């Protein structure tokens, strides 16, 4: 069992822009956290630094409160599952899983018992004598997991373990990993660039960009309150709609205006946004906050020039232009429209956000819906 803490950790590769800068974070014992970010954002570098496979330039890495900067990987008792699985090609499944235990000098009987148990847990028993080359992608994935589990490490570090699997298998393994975590209750860091994995698997998400930590928090909390336009765009598909415009004072209230568009700002946010009256801002609203009919106290009709409709089955995504800028609206499968037509949708403005155009940072406002966000168990 282990808590993991990073203090001001930096890793810079000479002659390269990659790496991580000034990372501060704390992962509690038994927590399942996600490192999320686009490729090259430094999340894998951070993972390898925690495992001890990369040395860091500055800062401290603490496991269970102890600085482990100069502790060798083998003495950190952390298991890593690599994106490539990294199975030892000259060993069969049993030997792959037993390798870590043998290196640590466990007695043969204990190794046998542990490997058998892990193989049972992951459904690998019939495959124990096979070489990795004789396994399918999903089976290799499970062997890599098994190799990590048998050692009973303090923490699991998973480096994009699902990215090489096809969509169906990925969905299965997603559930499997969550189930395993519930069973083993070990601290787990899962690195991914997939927002579905990020939203569904972890207790908390750490979102990274260009080697820096941009935002952290429970998935729904981050989803509802993105710290900047990057997070707003990255954490959903289609990404949050962003419309450039300005805030205008209108009597007592405020209005977001862009070309022919005028959206009243909900009363609860007036104080927070008052200082921005007359200034350019970026308006953000998620695609699911457009509705076919009025919905909520701050519903406002908008005219959408439909350009394309993506019929996904359970829902239709309307892609069109609002005040001349592209937006996507997620509507039920019963609602559709002809491309080229203009339709009236109803935007629920309660979850809206405003961002500063220069740096993309969110303009702080009171929380929209506090209660249901904490319902995760």
């Amino acid at each position, binding site marked *: 069992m282990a808590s993991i803490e990073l203090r001001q950790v930096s890793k810079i590769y000479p002659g390269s822009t990659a790496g991580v800068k000034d990372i501060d974070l704390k992962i509690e014992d038994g927590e399942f956290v996600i490192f999320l970010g686009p490729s090259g954002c430094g999340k894998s570098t951070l993972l390898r630094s925690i495992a001890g496979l990369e040395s860091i330039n500055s800062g401290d890495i603490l496991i269970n409160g102890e600085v482990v900067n100069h502790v060798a990987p083998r003495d950190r008792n952390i298991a890593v599952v690599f994106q*490539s699985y990294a199975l030892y*090609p*000259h060993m069969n499944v049993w030997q792959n899983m037993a390798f870590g235990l043998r290196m640590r000098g466990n007695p043969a009987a204990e190794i046998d018992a542990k490997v058998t148990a892990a193989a049972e847990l992951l459904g690998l028993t019939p495959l124990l004598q096979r070489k990795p080359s004789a396994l399918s992608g999903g089976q290799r994935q499970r062997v890599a997991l098994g190799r990590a589990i048998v050692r009973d490490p303090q923490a699991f570090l998973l480096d994009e373990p699902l990215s090489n699997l096809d969509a169906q298998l990925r969905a299965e393994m997603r559930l499997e990993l969550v189930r395993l975590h519930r069973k083993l209750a070990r601290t787990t860091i899962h690195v991914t660039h997939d927002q579905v994995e990020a939203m569904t698997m972890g207790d908390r998400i750490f979102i990274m960009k260009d080697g820096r930590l941009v935002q952290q928090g429970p998935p729904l909390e981050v989803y509802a309150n993105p710290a900047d336009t990057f997070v707003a765009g990255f954490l959903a598909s289609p990404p949050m709609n962003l419309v450039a415009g300005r805030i205008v004072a209108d009597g007592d209230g405020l209005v977001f205006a862009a070309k022919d568009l005028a959206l009243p700002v909900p009363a609860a946010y007036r104080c927070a946004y008052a200082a921005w009256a007359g200034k350019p801002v970026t308006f953000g609203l998620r695609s699911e906050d457009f509705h076919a009919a009025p919905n909520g106290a701050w519903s406002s009709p908008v005219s959408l020039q439909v350009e394309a409709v993506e019929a996904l089955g359970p829902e239709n995504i309307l892609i069109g232009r609002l005040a001349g800028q592209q937006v996507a609206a997620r509507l039920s499968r019963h609602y559709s429209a002809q491309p080229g037509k203009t339709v009236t949708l109803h935007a629920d403005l309660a979850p809206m956000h405003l961002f500063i155009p220069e740096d993309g940072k969110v303009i702080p406002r009171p929380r929209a819906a506090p209660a249901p966000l904490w319902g995760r168990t």
Partner: protein
Amino acid sequence: MRHFGLHAGLWLAVAFIILPPLWVLRTSLVPENMAYSTEIFPAFSLENYQSLFGQKRFGTFYLNSIIVAVGSVIIALPFAAAMGYAFARFQTGGRFGRFLVLSLQMLPPVALVLPAFAILRSMELTQSLTGLTIVYAALNIPFLAWILMGFFEGIPVDLEWAAMTDGTTAWGAFWRIVLPVSLPGLAAAGVLGFILSWNEFLFALVLTGSKTATIPVALASLQTSNGIQIGKVSAGVVLAILPLIVASRFIQRFIVQGLTFGSVK
């Protein structure tokens, strides 16, 4: 029928390559005085082989060649492996280091043979198998390191990382994972080194004596003032080629079989 032209061409090429060695084999198996006969196979005789192993002490030279070739590979391989690994994984020496290794291969052997002779003479190792083995090992190292570097570069670093988190040291990861996985590469490099040493003539001529000659030198000595003893030369060539044929089969098997397949993705 469509492939007839192609196959005919290929058979022609095969004949072109394989007929001379076949003729050598034929010449080695007929009596010396019939060697230049126009008949395809005038008479069968093992007298060339008997004479080679008898009065010409070919067995000794054969053994010399094996000792020198195997010995030099055994000495060179660990150094070459370490060097190739350092180049591949740690970029030791950078591009200049790699160029330096390659450039050693471009030196004409004649430029090296005299210094080698001078050094060995001061160590009193001329005319000895030990001296020749050491020189061959030195000549083999850069070449083998270059081959092994390519092999090590093909091994994903993830494998070593996995081993290190599994409880090995960096050295342990090399020893238990990288080396076994690159066994085909080591075998291929070893066989290539063996072939190079086996065929080498110039250094062997300069650095060995009458008792320590290797096969190429012994073969050359069959060109006497009384003319070339073509029957014995043919028999010697056949014997010299045999291990190479075995070696090429071996190397082919190992190079074709990609052992890393299945470890990743």
